[in-house]
């Protein structure tokens, strides 16, 4: 896979966190994103150097709140979490062991921590009595396009009745049993990444991956208090999408093989890390891989503004979103659609119906508008 290294340039690949991997599943049709992610390119830095800095950032208040809530759930050996699991899943009293897999002293490498995690999971999967119940900060690994990505270990796994569960702690509130659907969906997508990584780890160790539950325990503050509450969330649909997308990325080689051999997204950083790559050159390189822009990218991809501008320059109807594209029956550009509407363009094969509708819409619009 040194071809991918060449695409990235002489910098270490960007680590993938669960959020980034979950976002991969958001737009599986985008070759640009697939290639950049497979190569571990720093998309944020790339976008900034191109002059299209990513429009997101996280508020320090949100970060503080997230950390405060997580530490509340986890303090004193996950005392809050134990109560929740005892209430929700009937976790028996004797099962109260807590192992912090992140607490290994010093600052060892991801490999060391991962092998520590594997050793413990193996022991736990063999059901030895002293192998513990709660495992905090397990360092899991997922194969992404032939590369091992270590996942930021911000979850707890636990074992009950021979099955492993993932616990995802999120600080958005559940008010009267309802939470913002977007946030729940995002949490489910992220949890699915851990579930899959845990399944893969068990499989590698020769255990049955089905011993990982597809029901994730989501812990959120309840109502307006700081009090945690737990809910089970079935992440099977998210798992299916994720598996599909990872399989696609495993085949990213096919896309990469068709790229010109000299192509690279190297930012050529100087000693201070400041990119020196001529912007025009980088722009051409990025444009060398096709994007599939959709307005949803605006909340999930660092390169969104760049791709939006590109789509805009091409007059692509992708710009207007799925609903419009669907209403236009897949007509690709604004000019083409307007041409069909005013009759200046003869519909191609299969376009007769949408052309008829557009002409009618055009006529009615002129009549009453």
């Amino acid at each position, binding site marked *: 896979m040194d071809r991918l290294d060449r695409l990235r340039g002489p910098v270490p690949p960007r680590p993938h966190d669960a959020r980034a991997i979950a976002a991969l599943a958001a737009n599986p049709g985008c070759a640009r994103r697939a290639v950049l992610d497979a190569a571990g390119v720093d998309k944020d830095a790339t976008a900034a150097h191109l002059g299209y800095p990513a429009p997101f950032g996280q508020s320090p208040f*949100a970060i503080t709140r997230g950390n405060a809530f997580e530490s509340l759930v986890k303090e004193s050996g996950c005392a809050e979490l134990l109560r929740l699991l005892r209430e929700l899943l009937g976790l028996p009293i004797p099962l109260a062991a807590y192992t912090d897999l992140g607490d290994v002293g010093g600052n060892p490498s991801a490999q060391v921590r991962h092998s520590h995690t594997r050793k413990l999971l193996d022991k736990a999967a063999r059901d030895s009595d002293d192998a513990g119940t709660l495992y905090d900060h397990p360092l899991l690994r997922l194969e992404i396009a032939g590369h091992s990505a270590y996942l930021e270990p911000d979850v707890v796994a636990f074992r009950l009745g021979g099955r492993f569960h993932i616990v995802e702690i999120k600080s958005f509130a559940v008010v009267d049993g309802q939470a913002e659907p977007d946030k729940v969906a995002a949490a489910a997508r992220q949890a699915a990444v851990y579930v899959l990584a845990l399944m893969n780890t068990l499989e590698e160790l020769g255990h049955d991956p089905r011993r990982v539950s597809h029901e994730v325990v989501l812990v959120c503050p309840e109502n307006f208090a700081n009090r945690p509450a737990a809910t089970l969330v079935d992440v099977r649909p998210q798992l299916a999408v994720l598996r599909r997308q990872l399989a696609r990325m495993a085949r990213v080689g096919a896309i990469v093989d068709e790229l010109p051999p000299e192509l690279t997204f190297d930012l050529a950083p100087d000693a201070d890390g400041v990119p020196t790559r001529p912007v025009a050159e980088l722009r051409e390189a990025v444009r060398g891989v096709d994007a599939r822009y959709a307005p949803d990218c605006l909340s999930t991809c660092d390169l969104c503004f760049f791709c939006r501008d590109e789509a805009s320059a091409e007059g692509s109807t992708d710009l207007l979103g799925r609903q419009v594209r669907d209403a236009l029956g897949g007509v690709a550009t604004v000019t083409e659609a307007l041409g069909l509407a005013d009759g200046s363009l003869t519909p191609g094969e299969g376009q007769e119906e949408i052309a008829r509708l557009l002409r009618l819409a055009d006529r009615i619009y002129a009549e009453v508008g």
Partner: protein
Amino acid sequence: MSTLAALARLRAVHTGTAQRLATVRHCHLSERPMVFIPLRLAGEAAAPLAAMAGTDPGHPRLLVVPQPRDRDLRFAFAAELAEILLPYFEGLQKATETVERRGAEPYERCVDAPQVIVPGRGAVAFVQLLGRSTRFRRAEGPYAVHPSVPVLGRWLTFLAQRAQYPGSSLLLAATEALSLHWATGQSTLEDANLASLVGWIDPPPGMTGASAAREAEDPLVWPPAGPATDPGFDTEVLAPAIRAYEETRSDRAAARVAEAVRSQLEPTWRLMWRAIGLLGTLPAAPGAAARWEGDRTSFTGFAAQLAEGGPPQPKRDGAVGAASRLARMERAQASYDAQRAYDDPLVMAAYRLTGEAFTGTVVATEPDRTEGEGRGRKLRPLVTVRTTDPVRLAPGTRLGTPERRGQQAEVVAIDGEHVTLKIVKGMGRGMAATPGAVPEAGERVCYAALTDEFQPPASLPAPEETPWTHGGPPPEYSPADDEPEEEWS
């Protein structure tokens, strides 16, 4: 999205300006709307950070919570907001009119109702959460709050619930009201940004809508309209200001927080009044006034309930309540859709595209045709319309017409471009048609398979007879002091 709306967006891309989606205004616009722009502290469910509110564009009131994690300051904010909103709500209850009803007691209805306009859907959700977090509070006992706080909570809850009712204008989201009337050259996702939406509709001189919208995406030029704040602002400006307040608790530090949030709210405040001005350029649709009457009835009813000391709205609807609410909403949606189509040829156009409606010219009529014998004899005129619209209606389908709202017709036959209709309702009792009741040859007419009739409500059991399969009768409501928030540790 209809092909027409999609085409309008394409044209907006092409011309660089927003395109009209309506010829008339489908929401009511109050003469004295209350603009309310809430900001929330990032990461918190319903911790108010600040708000700008008022009915006078020249004099916004700024409310600030210099430490949004401080519970007491939060409720002080709610009390202050109540000071602004409650007099507004109460003032509108003073003038009433008597409404006569056939077969029922006449009742009193307020001649006007409040209209709270917020920037977007996020703010509507925030109003709901703020209502939820305040309506169960008590003025005495532990964690006591100002007596106005629970009252405010109930009003906010009322408004947020009413906002879900199709066609209601008591609580309007500016972005949604504008999107109902204009199509931009961007996605609906991007339309949720008020500054960018207004940029498309009303770009500053010398700029296209497209470029104004792009500029509006820069949070430094146009701060987000809330309730979320710009993370960059949070990091660089707000966090240090709140920290300084936390350390000193001084007026000076509070003023610094106030100035910081004012800088984020003022541009949106101006934008909100521009949005209201834009909506005001459209003439009101007849249906908007009728729906506002419904809003006034609802407002009057809620005010009475409050005055009678009824309990705060429950946290969840019972099974029967939820089902009847759903049925009510569905009917309201159907009737709202029909009213808008009959009020507005541009809205009707979408139905013409799908063949549920058509416009054409009357080519022949039989105005004095009757059916039946003796006392059962009725006037049933025939009208034949020539249309080039792709009509997709089966014989027997009931149709309405914007030209004669009281009438209904039935499709008799469709033969190529000719549609023959029989007028079956609204002809009166006479055996000869009154002049003008039947369209004459040469007249442009429109007919649509949309009905805006009263339908009897679904028959549902009374709440206390809820079947056990649906959870049984809901427990009688008794107020509880819940979620006494603890401070963040």
